């Protein structure tokens, strides 16, 4: 572990990538994450990484595919509109069962949107985004420390399961500065061998083909079944979430990433006013902590979901809660970060059973 440093989230993520043994980064500038490319262009190149500014996000993700297919630890990063451009490539990477890391430092949308932070890409990250039946393993950091730590985890998970892993962050986490200490450099023997990679066919094996094309329906179904089994295995083994004062909670807040920090402030304020509130923070958005929320739902009187979007993760909360208790939603869009006070006001209205006007009906 290195000593603590004060670093910007984007830069901490980049530094972690170098230490995690990332061989290559292909990316394109976009606010609010260009620092990742810049840090790696300055630092990574001197420390053994291939760092290439590609001509677009489309080119970037296809370079990631090529490098992953050749057996490298490889990543890219972008922000919402750029991640949209990468969706085809991500689907190919998932279909070809290649490991890689894709970082989304989300900004407000839709469209060109704003450069302010948002959580508007939850659906895109967690429910697909690209075409076809695939999922990403999605990690949602809520601090600069997690921006760094999750990079190590993401590469290991990607290699272990042969799939793309996404770190779903946002512009505020990317730009804020906090203390961070880095894990040690990943030794070469820690990284799993990749006998399936296209490194040049020796006489001792058949040729390796990296493809996601399977024209015969039976073969395509077989591949899809294998992918789905992989995702079931991941759900059983890799689901992560954090509990904050949930043991004795009467009201449960559910939030991820930056919104979870706000919600945590709300919980603390609520507790000081005698409201037994708790927070469940999903860390993996896929696989989502359905069981944890379902269990907690039996012990609380209501659930409040806080997001920086129009209501995306709230659907997964509702599925898990299954109608047992009311689920309310509070969200801000356009890159506006809700304050703990405004969330507390919503919570208090739940406690007193009155409904403020800005709640949506469903």
């Amino acid at each position, binding site marked *: 572990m290195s000593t603590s440093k004060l670093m910007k989230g984007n830069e901490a993520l980049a530094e972690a990538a170098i230490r995690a043994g990332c061989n290559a980064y292909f990316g394109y500038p976009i606010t609010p994450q260009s620092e990742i490319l810049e840090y790696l262009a300055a630092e990574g190149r001197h420390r053994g990484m291939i760092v290439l500014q590609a001509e677009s996000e489309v080119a970037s993700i296809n370079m990631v595919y*090529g490098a992953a297919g050749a057996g490298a630890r490889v990543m890219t990063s972008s922000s919402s509109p750029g991640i949209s451009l990468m969706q085809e490539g991500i689907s190919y990477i998932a279909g*070809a069962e290649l490991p890689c890391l894709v970082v989304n430092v989300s900004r407000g949308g839709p469209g060109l949107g704003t450069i302010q932070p948002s959580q508007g890409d939850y659906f895109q990250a967690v429910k697909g985004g690209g075409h076809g039946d695939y999922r990403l393993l999605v990690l949602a950091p809520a601090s600069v420390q997690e921006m760094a730590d999750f990079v190590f985890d993401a590469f290991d998970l990607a290699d272990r399961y042969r799939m793309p892993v996404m770190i779903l962050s946002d512009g505020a986490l990317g730009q804020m500065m906090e203390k961070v200490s880095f894990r040690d450099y990943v030794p070469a023997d820690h990284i799993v061998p990749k006998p399936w990679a296209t490194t040049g066919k020796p006489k001792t094996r058949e040729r390796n083909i990296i493809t996601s094309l399977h024209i015969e329906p039976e073969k395509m179904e077989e591949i899809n079944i294998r992918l789905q089994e992989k995702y079931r295995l991941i759900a059983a083994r890799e689901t992560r979430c954090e509990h904050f004062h949930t043991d004795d909670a009467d009201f449960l807040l559910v939030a991820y990433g930056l919104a979870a920090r706000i919600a945590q402030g709300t919980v603390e304020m609520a507790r000081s006013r005698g409201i037994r509130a708790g927070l469940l923070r999903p860390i993996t958005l896929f696989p989502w902590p359905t069981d944890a929320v379902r269990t907690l739902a039996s012990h609380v009187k209501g659930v409040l979901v806080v997001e920086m979007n129009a209501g995306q993760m709230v659907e997964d909360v509702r599925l898990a809660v299954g109608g047992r208790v009311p689920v309310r939603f509070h969200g801000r869009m356009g890159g506006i970060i809700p304050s703990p006070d405004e969330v507390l006001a919503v919570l208090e209205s739940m406690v007193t059973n009155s409904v403020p006007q800005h709640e949506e009906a469903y």
Partner: protein
Amino acid sequence: MERQAIEQDVAGLECVYAKPGTLTDTRLHYCPGCGHGVVHRVLMEVIEELGIQDSTIGVAPVGCSVFAYNYLNIDMQEAAHGRASAVATAVKRILPDRYVFSYQGDGDLAAIGTAETIHTANRGENILVVFINNAIYGMTGGQMAPTTLLGMTTTTSPEGRTVETAGFPLKITEIVATLPGVYYVSRNSVHTPGAVRHLKKAVQKSFQFQKEKKGTCFIEVVSNCPSGWKMTPLEANAWLEEHMFPLYPPGEIKTPK
């Protein structure tokens, strides 16, 4: 009876040409007379002769040759439509001592993949780009390509390509040749034995230049599409000479000084 005749004829005669061992036994799915098969064979002959089967990686496109990896007995990656040169860039950057080539048709390279084609060449990536230009989209049923000739009938230019609707045929090879990172550009065909021999020389040079890290090598093969052009293979090759060559003349377009 035929069998015996051949065995007897072979006795005393030396084998001077056979299918390269670097092609698989899988039957090619290409239409009869399609140039893809010849280019595949020439590439694999060179790879076999140079002894680099174990250090060559190819990138297949989306198009008729999307299944190239079923025929070429080397490690291969299938790229998304248009992106083969980006994929090849990454493979080469990760494995700089291997031989890497991309293999693309006119839609893949000069329509959807134009940005990747230009920028790969502009960076002077040490790869070989093989460009099969038959002025049509074969796999999807014969639509117009960027390289389709003016007046040429396709399913999306049913009355013949016009400038007003579709602009001019794109001479992508000449554009790529202007880039300083591009070391060698050759335009070939495979419709005569002599043309095939020229192509083989171009491929041999390209692998040598790649070994010497000279930059991007770009080989265009003006080829036919008997199905898309609605001709027999022989008719298609005659049409190719008469109509394709005036716009896409074979020759060494950019050679090292």
